[in-house]
C-alpha cells in the first residue's frame, strides 16, 4: 500500500517524476534535480516533507522521559520554541533514529522523526513510556513544507499574515513558533536559511500554490539528498542505523555527558566506546577529478605504521555547487583530515582527499 501526501496532486500538476520512498509516493524531481539544487543554494526552493512523522509529547514527566529517550539533554532547552537535534539510541548504543525536538514547556514538546522509521520509533517510544506520566500523540493531520534558500524567508514573508510575520521576525536558527494555523520553524536539511512549516492538511495545497506564485521552486528528493550531503547532514539508513554508534556517525556532538546522573538509553555502552576510542568515524571525501563517489564503495586507507585499513562510503554524490563528487565515509579513526585515501571505482583505485564532513553552507564552499 503506497501512501500519498496531501500535496500529491500539486506534484503531478508541477510535472513531478514520482518514486516510491519507503512506502510513500514522493517527487524525485520536477525535471532537473540539479536546477532544483541550484534554486535552493541561490534563491528559494520548497520540499514536500509531509511524509515525516510529527509526534507531540505532553505530560508531567515529558522532560524526564526525553532525558532518558535521547542522547542529547532536553534540560538544555529553556526558551520556548527552541529546537534540538539529537539521536534516539537503543540500550546497545545503536541509533534508532535521529530527530528534532521542539521545546514549548517542560510538559510540552514536539518531535519530528523520519518517515522510514515511523513504526519502530513509535513502538520504541511507547515501550519506553512505561512508568512515565506522558501522552505520545502522532499528528498525521498536518502536512509539512520546507522552504529553503537565501531568498526563502523573504518569499515566505510575502504570503504570511501580519501577525505571522511578527511572530517569526528576528527568530534565530533552530526555533519554532505556532503562528495562527502554521507552526513555522527555522530548521531545515539543506545548509541554507529558511523555514520548515507545519500546516493543517486542508490548507496545504493553498500554501503550496501561494509559495509557487511567490516564486519558490518545487524541489524533489533528488535535490534534497545532494543539498543535505553538501551540508554534511546525515541520512538515516545510509549514514547510520541501529548497528552504528553515534560516535561512528559524526553525532558525538549531539550527546550530552555532563549530568552524570542522567541515565539515557545506551549511555553505558557509549561511555565505554568513548573511553576506548575504538569506534570508526564518519568523515568527508572529495574527488576533484571526473567520476562520482557512490554509496557502498570501499575506502582503503594506510595509517602511519603502514597498516592498511578499510572503510566504506555511506553516502556519495555529485555536488552541483562544487562541480565535483563528495561523499561521507565511515573509516578507521586513524584517518585524518588532509589524508589521501583510495576508493575502488569501476575497477580502478582512485585517490581522494579526506575533509571534514561539511562541504557547503549558505551557498559557500567549506573546502579550502
Amino acid at each position, binding site marked *: 500500500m503506497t501512501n500519498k501526501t496531501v500535496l500529491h496532486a500539486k506534484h503531478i500538476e508541477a510535472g513531478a517524476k514520482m518514486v516510491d520512498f519507503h512506502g510513500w509516493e514522493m517527487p524525485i524531481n520536477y525535471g*532537473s534535480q*540539479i536546477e532544483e539544487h541550484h534554486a535552493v543554494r541561490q534563491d528559494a526552493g520548497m520540499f514536500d516533507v509531509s511524509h515525516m512523522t510529527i509526534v507531540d509529547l505532553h505530560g508531567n514527566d515529558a522532560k524526564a522521559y526525553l532525558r532518558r529517550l535521547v542522547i542529547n539533554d532536553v534540560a538544555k532547552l529553556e526558551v520556548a520554541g527552541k529546537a534540538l537535534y539529537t539521536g534516539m539510541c537503543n540500550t546497545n548504543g545503536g541509533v534508532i533514529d535521529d530527530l528534532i525536538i521542539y521545546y514549548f514547556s517542560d510538559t510540552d514538546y514536539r518531535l519530528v522523526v523520519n518517515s522510514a522509521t515511523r513504526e519502530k520509533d513509535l513502538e520504541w517510544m511507547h515501550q519506553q513510556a512505561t512508568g512515565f506520566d506522558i501522552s505520545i500523540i502522532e499528528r498525521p493531520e498536518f502536512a509539512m513544507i520546507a522552504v529553503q534558500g537565501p531568498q526563502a524567508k523573504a518569499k515566505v514573508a510575502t504570503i504570511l499574515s501580519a501577525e505571522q510575520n511578527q511572530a517569526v521576525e528576528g527568530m534565530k536558527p533552530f526555533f519554532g513558533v505556532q503562528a495562527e494555523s502554521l507552526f513555522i520553524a527555522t530548521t531545515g536539511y539543506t545548509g541554507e536559511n529558511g523555514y520548515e512549516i507545519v500546516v493543517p492538511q486542508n490548507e496545504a495545497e493553498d500554501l503550496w500554490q501561494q509559495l509557487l506564485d511567490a516564486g519558490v521552486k518545487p524541489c524533489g528528493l533528488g535535490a534534497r539528498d545532494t543539498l543535505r550531503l553538501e551540508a554534511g547532514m546525515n541520512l538515516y539508513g545510509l549514514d547510520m542505523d541501529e548497528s552504528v554508534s553515534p560516535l561512528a556517525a559524526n553525532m558525538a556532538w549531539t550527546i550530552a555527558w555532563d549530568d552524570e546522573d542522567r541515565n539515557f538509553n545506551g549511555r553505558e555502552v557509549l561511555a565505554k566506546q568513548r573511553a576506548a576510542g575504538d569506534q570508526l568515524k564518519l568523515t568527508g571525501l572529495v574527488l576533484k577529478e571526473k567520476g*562520482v563517489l557512490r554509496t557502498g564503495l570501499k575506502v582503503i586507507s594506510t595509517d602511519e605504521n603502514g597498516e592498511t585499513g578499510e572503510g566504506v562510503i555511506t553516502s556519495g554524490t555529485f555536488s552541483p555547487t562544487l562541480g565535483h563528487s563528495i561523499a561521507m565515509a565511515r573509516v578507521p579513526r586513524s584517518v585524518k583530515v588532509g589524508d589521501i585515501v583510495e576508493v575502488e571505482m569501476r575497477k580502478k583505485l582512485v585517490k581522494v582527499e579526506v575533509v571534514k564532513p561539511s562541504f557547503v553552507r549558505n551557498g559557500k564552499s567549506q573546502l579550502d
Partner: protein
Amino acid sequence: MSNIPSELRYATSHEWVRNEGDGTVTVGITEHAQELLGDMVFVELPEVGESVSTGDDVAVAESVKAASDIYAPVSGEVIEVNEDLEDSPELVNSDAFGDGWMFKIKLDDASEVEALLDAEGYANSIDED
C-alpha cells in the same frame, strides 16, 4: 512516451545512430536513456582515432544517479567526439538527439547500420523493459 525520431537507427542498449551517408555515423544516447539516467554530470568519451568494435564499452555517461557504459553500436574508427560535453554534459539531457551527440564513427562495414533497430523496433524494445 519519449521521442524516437524515425530517421535514426537504434541499439537495444539505448544508443542512437545517424547515418550521415558518407560512410560515417553519429552516435548518442536516446531521450529515453537520458530520462532513465537523470541529470548528466560527466561524460567520458573515446579517443579520436581509436578503433572500436560493435558492443565495446567506449564511453561512460555518469549521471546524478549512476554511471552507465555506452557501447559502440557499430565497428569502425572514432573520427570525432563532442567536446562540448566536457563542460556541458547537460546537453545530453536537453537535446539527446542533437547537441547531446557523443561521437562519430567511420564505418568498417556500411551494412552494419541497416542491421540496427528502426524506430518502431526500438520502441518495442523499451516497452519490454
